[in-house]
């Protein structure tokens, strides 16, 4: 296990620009090791708290994904 682990420090904000800590939505001691996981967790947060949407997630490449209320799983890059 943990043969390789990239440093994953995602930037994720709600509609008011407040930072959202994705780790707060994970079980204790769960390690974030890739951005695919990050996008799934962001979608989970968006579905769970739609009143804070749209959320914005910064991908590793610097691209920003907007997660809209009501369609959090169909996030579209911007």
């Amino acid at each position, binding site marked *: *296990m*943990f*043969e*390789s*682990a*990239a*440093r994953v420090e995602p930037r994720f904000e709600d509609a008011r620009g407040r930072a959202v800590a994705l780790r707060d*939505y*994970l*079980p*204790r*001691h*769960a*390690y974030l090791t890739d951005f695919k996981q990050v996008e*799934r*967790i962001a979608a*989970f*947060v968006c579905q*769970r708290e739609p009143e804070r949407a749209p959320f914005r997630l910064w991908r590793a490449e610097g691209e920003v994904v907007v997660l809209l209320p009501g369609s959090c799983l169909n996030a579209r890059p911007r």
Partner: protein
Amino acid sequence: MRALVDWERFEPGSLGWFYRLLGLTLLARIATDLHVDLWAVHDGRLFPWRHLPGLPLYPPAGLAIEWAMMGLAALAITTGFRLRAGVYLALLVSAVSLTQRYANHRALLLLVLAFLALSPVEPRRPGLSGERHPNLALIRYQLVIVYLFSALNKVRAGFLEGTALQHLLDLDAEPARALAWLVVAAEFSLPLLLWRLPWLGLGGVACLHLGFALFMPAIWPFSLLMLAMAVLFVGDTRDPGALPLAGADAVGHNCS
């Protein structure tokens, strides 16, 4: 030289410790699930971490039943009362729990229980050390496979550079690289040590996995399981029919 080790023979004492540690592994599994707040995953507050897609996540009541069954199995395996039933129950619960959250160490637990369930052996059974138990030998082989392939996979993935440990444990580059080399060297050498010098190998396994568990508390069950598997190597399991090597027995020395 030591006579040939018979991988299918087991000492009653080491088998007894294997069961105790296996029972402890199951209890540690429950304690870890509680500690990481798995309940919140099943009631929807936390992200379903490592949940396999396509399989339904059961409600918290299902998790409570899983823990209760696992606890019963742990009790049976640790005490030896209804040992067979305990092994079968643990196998069933482990298989079901794997559908809820997949992790390599959970899959390893399932494999060990599956091997054991092929023919659960009472450690107090008279004449045990003279019998062959191929299903328990599979657990020994599995330990060798885990260490060798874990080490090879680490080398292949560039683990020796130390960056993975730097990120996971927040270490500086040099200590992380040294630790990475130490871990890989240990994983390559422990199967050999367990085979040739079982007590030393067991000490090595204990040190390595205690270290893992201190840095990553969520893997205590894995550490205990590896220790349980390693205990099976301890004891005089030489094949009585094997020819003595290099005349060791001829001069009356026991170099084991």
